[in-house]
């Protein structure tokens, strides 16, 4: 895989260098993403949506498709789809339609799924995402993928297979939960890009609150359509990779599949149109049961649901006399969109002068932006100094302990106070690390109290510092001689020795000046 990823990430010139005549094969990746709508009840019924409830406890008569039941659309789900569509620059269809898509699965009791095949609620959007490249991951590259459509549809129930494989247990709690299916155009070339796009989408959905976006709980499920071709030639035969439950596995599954298809073609074979599952243990994709010819879903218009209309108070107001609770207004949804991740990152870079890659870390970690802004607001230290402490020290330790930002034992105001002590020259930076470690223990003592009780303040007594410096000079005649011959680097060693004697409590700039004077 090494070469392929390298070629994608470093652009065209690398590819050209390696082959003179025939252009290299490249991967083509499109994604279909199912996002569970974050709502209290299901798409067409009033039973509860929840992750780990007792089996079949969140099932209405409609969800079990008992005869005589009819679908009633959940307004919240429509609003979530409109809001998500707007956040992804989609055109919202004022009129959209519902269709039936037929399957025979035991966890789909109606024998069909209600979806939006002909006229979905949102079409033609764009997802802009960035990923970090370069040896130190210090360069941000921004790309975009077109969104073909967003459609509302029902989730299925869950099947559990017993060990002997002789029967299937059906839990319908998930049956009928609202999904937004996002269909992306095949605009990506490798697993890394796809994973970055999914991560950005996940953040956007979480910011909007339209989907909780937890991949391991199945709230965000990704299928990847993968093919390879030579640029300029028609797209190759594609395979569909399913069973991907994390962004990391997504990248690995896609890259494996691209490399597998290239290998098949290099050996003169042809790629089969098939569905493959990703096995995260072996890191391979393996063929799933072969489709019998072309799948025919026997689509038909859903006769029990008239067209879904949404309105705009300016350009297309709802008909006079419409109950306000019955009208979904596009402009009202637009007004409810909060600051999106990309805007937030731009603002952080702009307002605080931090590096772009740091803005990614702040936005990616739930609550970290608020934490950082809190520290900056309460401290006199420059934001650029605060960011290092927030990312390296606070986040570093949180990750090590598996804690969330909200669970940090060091609250923003304590870190701010500590930064002020540092800013005012009352502690050295090494003593500050000790203060931070004490704060992390969560004893409730303030930074100032810690400095005082553990005697961590800078040694301010001029005679004392001079005395220590002189003793270091006296005990290291060899080094002093070297310094006098012009090798200034050795001075740093003496500064370090003084710091050691003062347990990091002396101001290095001041110590250096004294030592310079004493050795000249």
């Amino acid at each position: 895989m090494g070469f392929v990823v390298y070629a994608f990430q470093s652009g065209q010139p690398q590819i050209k260098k390696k082959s003179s005549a025939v252009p290299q094969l490249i991967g083509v990746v499109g994604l279909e993403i199912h996002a569970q709508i974050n709502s209290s009840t299901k798409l067409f019924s009033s039973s509860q949506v929840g992750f780990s409830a007792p089996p079949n406890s969140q099932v209405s008569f409609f969800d079990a498709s008992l005869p005589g039941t009819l679908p009633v659309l959940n307004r919240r789900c429509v609003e979530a789809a409109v809001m998500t569509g707007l956040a992804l620059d989609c055109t919202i269809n004022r009129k959209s339609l519902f269709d039936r898509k037929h399957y025979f699965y035991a966890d789909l009791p109606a024998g069909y799924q209600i979806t939006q095949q002909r006229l979905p609620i949102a079409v033609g959007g764009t997802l802009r995402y960035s990923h970090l490249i370069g040896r130190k991951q210090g360069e941000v590259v921004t790309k975009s993928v077109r969104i073909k459509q967003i459609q509302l549809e029902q989730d299925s129930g869950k099947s559990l297979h017993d060990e002997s494989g002789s029967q299937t247990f059906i839990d319908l709690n998930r049956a009928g939960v609202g999904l937004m299916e996002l269909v992306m155009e095949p605009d990506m070339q490798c697993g890394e890009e796809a994973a970055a796009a999914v991560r950005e989408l996940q953040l956007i959905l979480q910011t909007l609150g339209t989907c909780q976006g937890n991949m391991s709980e199945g709230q965000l499920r990704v299928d990847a359509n993968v093919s390879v071709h030579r640029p300029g030639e028609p797209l190759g035969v594609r395979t569909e990779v399913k069973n991907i439950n994390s962004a990391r596995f997504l990248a690995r599954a896609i890259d494996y599949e691209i490399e597998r298809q290239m290998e098949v073609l290099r050996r003169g074979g042809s790629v089969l149109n098939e569905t493959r599952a990703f096995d995260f243990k072996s890191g391979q994709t393996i063929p799933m049961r072969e489709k019998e010819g072309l799948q025919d879903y026997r689509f038909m218009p859903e006769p029990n649901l008239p067209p879904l209309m949404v309105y705009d108070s300016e350009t297309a107001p709802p008909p006079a006399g419409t109950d306000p609770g019955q009208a979904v207004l596009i402009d009202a949804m637009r007004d409810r969109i909060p600051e999106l991740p990309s805007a937030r990152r731009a603002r952080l870079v702009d307002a605080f002068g931090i590096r772009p890659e740091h803005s990614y870390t702040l936005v990616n970690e739930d609550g970290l932006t608020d934490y950082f802004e809190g520290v900056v607001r309460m401290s006199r230290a420059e934001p650029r100094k605060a960011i290092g402490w927030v990312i390296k020290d606070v986040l570093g330790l949180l990750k090590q302990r598996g804690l969330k930002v909200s669970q940090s034992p060091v609250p923003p105001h304590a870190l701010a106070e500590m930064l002020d002590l540092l800013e005012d020259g009352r502690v050295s930076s090494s003593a500050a690390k000790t203060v931070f470690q004490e704060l992390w223990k969560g004893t409730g003592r303030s930074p100032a109290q810690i400095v005082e009780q553990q005697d961590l303040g800078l040694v301010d007594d001029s005679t004392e510092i001079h005395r220590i410096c002189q003793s270091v000079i006296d005990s290291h005649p060899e080094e002093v001689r070297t310094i006098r011959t012009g090798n200034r680097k050795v001075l740093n060693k003496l500064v370090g020795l003084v710091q050691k004697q003062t347990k990091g409590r002396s101001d290095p700039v001041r110590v250096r000046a004294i030592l310079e004077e004493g050795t000249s």
Partner: protein
Amino acid sequence: MLRRLFWRICNPMVYARPLHRRCGVYTSPREDVLTSAQTLTGRRWTHGKPLSKEQNVQNSKVPQTPTWEPVSENQLPPPTHVPIDLVDKLERLALVDFRNQDAVVRLEKAIRFADQLHAVNTEGVEPMDSVLEDRALYLKDDRVEEGDCAEELLQLSKNTMEEYFVAPPGNIPLPERGERSATLTDSTNWAEETESKTLIGH
């Protein structure tokens, strides 16, 4: 749907089309007929006796008297022949068992019956999904009001385990075509069987 069409084909063969466009609820002159009960968002079909006159008046959406005129063969497109391969495909897709040649003939007749729709003048009329499509789609609040009835639902199922429904390990595939084409030529007892089961589940 197919079953309803089959049923109608059993009636004396009169090609007819409604006089008024958009009121195509078919009621046969016979006693035992299909009647439709419409709701705001959908309709349910039930077998039964026709509604009494009083009941019919209450539901203005159902035409009160059938109005028909014959459609001659030359107004229809050429009849559709259903090849055995297509029968096989339909059986697999819809899990419908045609069982024998008679059933295929009936399917062709059903298609022929539906061919009359081609004779309806629809010029200038937008295709419709439902006669109710100009009604507003009702939206419900996102408030929990149903569920918590696992016991009630599970007792409807023949086979349960703890709080789960139990199903076979996967879809049971239809027998291979070779085995089935033998039965397709055998046309006995079809009429009785189709009354009890036209659609088979899995």
